[in-house]
C-alpha cells in the first residue's frame, strides 16, 4: 500500500478542549476511506486541519511524504487536497456554469488573467460542461445557484471539488440534509467518483459508510479509536459500545 496522506501525532487544542489528540491517520492511494464517530468526536476539526483552515497545535501532515502542515488552504488545493462542505458553501450569485468555469480556470492557474473575457477558452468550457453533465446538472447550468433545489446544490458541492482535480477528496457528509427521494442521486455521484481519486468520507449514515468504504477509521473524543475493514469495524464490540443506541449494519 502506498500512503498518499498521512498525519503524524496531529494535535489541536482549543482553550481547555483537545479537539484532535495525537491522530496518526494513514490513507492509501485510491482508497475509499471513511471516518466515523459520534457527534463532537472532532471529525470536522480533522478536516479543517487537513485543509489548512485551522493550524495544528502540534504534529505534521504529509502528502506523498511532503510536509504540507504550513501551507495555506489554496496552496493545498493546488497540491490536490480538496474538500466539500457539510453545509453548502457555494457562490449564490453565480451559476453552476460560472462556478465550474471559475474552479477550472483557477486550477489551470489562469485566475489572475484579467484581460480575457470569461467564456473565450473552449477547452475550459468543454471541461466545465463535461463535469456538469457527469453530475446531471445540465438542466440548471445557467440558473442562479442560490435558487437551486437543495439536492442539486449538494451535487454542485461535489462537482466544484472535482473540477479542482483532487488527488485526495475530503467529502464532509455529502448527503447531509438531502431528502430521501433525492438521496440516490448523491450516492450515485459519490459511487461514480474516479477510481484514481483517493476519498476520505466523513459520514453519519452507516448505510452509506458500509456500502462505500473499503476502510473505516473511528474517531472518538478527538482520538483515533479503531481502524479496519468494514467487517472488522462492524464486529468490533468497542465500536458498538461507542455507538450504543445507533445501529450498525451487519456487514
Amino acid at each position, binding site marked *: 500500500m502506498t500512503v498518499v496522506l498521512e498525519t503524524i501525532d496531529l494535535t489541536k487544542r482549543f482553550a481547555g478542549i483537545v479537539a484532535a489528540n495525537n491522530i496518526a491517520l494513514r490513507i492509501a492511494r485510491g482508497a475509499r476511506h471513511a471516518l466515523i464517530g459520534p457527534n463532537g468526536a472532532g471529525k470536522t476539526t480533522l478536516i479543517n486541519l487537513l485543509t489548512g483552515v485551522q493550524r495544528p497545535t502540534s504534529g505534521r501532515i504529509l502528502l506523498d511524504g511532503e510536509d504540507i502542515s504550513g501551507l495555506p488552504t489554496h496552496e493545498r488545493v493546488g497540491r490536490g487536497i480538496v474538500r466539500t462542505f457539510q453545509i453548502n458553501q457555494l457562490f449564490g450569485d453565480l*451559476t453552476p456554469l460560472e462556478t465550474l468555469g471559475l474552479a477550472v480556470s483557477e*486550477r489551470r492557474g489562469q485566475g489572475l488573467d484579467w484581460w480575457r473575457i470569461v467564456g473565450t477558452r473552449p477547452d475550459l468550457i468543454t471541461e466545465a460542461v463535461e463535469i456538469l453533465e457527469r453530475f446531471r446538472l445540465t438542466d440548471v447550468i445557467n440558473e442562479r445557484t442560490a435558487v437551486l433545489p437543495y439536492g442539486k446544490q449538494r451535487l454542485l458541492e461535489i462537482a466544484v471539488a472535482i473540477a479542482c482535480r483532487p488527488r485526495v477528496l475530503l467529502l464532509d457528509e455529502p448527503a447531509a440534509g438531502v431528502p430521501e427521494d433525492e438521496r440516490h442521486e448523491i450516492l450515485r455521484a459519490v459511487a461514480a467518483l474516479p477510481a484514481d481519486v483517493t476519498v476520505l468520507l466523513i459520514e453519519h449514515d452507516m448505510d452509506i459508510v458500509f456500502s462505500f468504504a473499503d476502510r473505516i477509521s473511528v474517531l472518538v473524543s478527538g482520538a483515533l479509536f479503531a481502524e479496519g475493514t468494514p467487517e472488522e469495524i462492524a464486529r468490533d464490540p468497542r465500536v458498538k459500545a461507542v455507538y450504543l443506541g445507533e445501529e450498525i449494519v451487519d456487514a
Partner: protein
Amino acid sequence: MTTPPSAVRSATEWLSARARWQPLEGLFWFSAFAAVFLFPERHLILTEIAWLGLFALSLDLILGYAGIISLGHAAFFGVGAYTAALLAKHEIINEPVLALLASGLVAMALGFVTSFLVLRGSDLTRLMVTLGVALLLRELANSFGWLTGGADGLQGVTIKPVFGIFRFDMFGHTGYVYSLSVLFILFLIARRLVNSPFGLSLLAVKGNPLRASAIGVSVDARMVAIYTVAAGYAGIAGALLAQTTAFASLEVFSFDRSADLLLVLIIGGAGYLYGGLIGAIIFKFMQDYLSVLTPQYWPFWIGLVLVVIVLVGRDRITTWTAPIRLFAARLDWRTFARREAAASKDQCQ
C-alpha cells in the same frame, strides 16, 4: 462521455453574456460625448461628474465586486490630487496625461501598502481602518505645510496643455473632454477586468471567501490586487480634479468626500460598473439644482432620497437598479436575434 458541441456553444454564450455590450450602454456613452457639443455651457459641472463618476467607479471595484467597504476612499483621491498638483507646480512632469499616470501610480503604491489593513476583520473594522487612514493622511498633509500649503491649499499651480496642444480654459471645455476621455478609457479597462476570470474570482471572494479558498483562490492576494487597482483609479480621479481646477486643498482628504462617495455609489447601485457613473450624475445635478433652490438645506433632500432608496431597496440595497438592468438586457436585440436563430436551428435538427 462526450459533450455535444451545442451544449458547449450555449455554455460559451452564457459565460460571455455578462461581457456583451448592451444598446443602453452605447446610448450612455454616446450621450456623454454628445454633451461636448450639445451643452458647452454645462462643461464645468459635467467635468465634476466625470471625475466623481471615476471616483465612484473605483469604490465600486472594491465594494461591488470584492465586497470591501470603505469610508476612507478619499485617501487615494487626495494623494492623487496632491501628486498631480505638486508635479505641475514644481514643473516635474509638465504633460498632464503623464502626470495623471504618475499620480495614479503613487495612489496605487499607497493602496498596496494599506490593502493589508483591510484583509482581516468585519465590515465595521474595515470602515474604521479606512476612515483612520484617510484622517491620518489629511493630518500629514496639514502638518507638511511647506510642501502642501497646509490649510491654505496648494496655490499657484499652472497646468500645461494636454499633449502640449490643448490648453485648459476657464469654461471647462478642454477639462470635460479630457476628463471624459480618461473616464471612458479607464471604464473600458474596468469593464474588461470585471468580466475576466480574475473578475469572476473577485465575485467568488465576495460571495464566499471560505469556498473561494477551497477551490484554490488566494483570497488575500486577490483583495490586495483589486484594492491596489481601485486606489489607482481613485488617485487618477483626484488628479483630474487637481488638473481641471489647478488647485488642491486638504478638503480632498475630507471625511465628507468619502461619505458622499458611498452615497453616490448607493444611489446608482453597486456591482455593475454604471452605478457610480449614474450616481454621480444624479448626485451632482441634485446638488446643483437643490443648492440653487434651497442653498442651505439641499443635504436634507439628498438625505431623503437616500432614506427612500434604502427603504425601497431594503437589504438588496446594492441591486435596487436590477430591474432596469434586466429591462436593458431584454432590449438587447442581438441577444434576441441570437435566441431566435438558435431556436430555429433546433427545430431544423
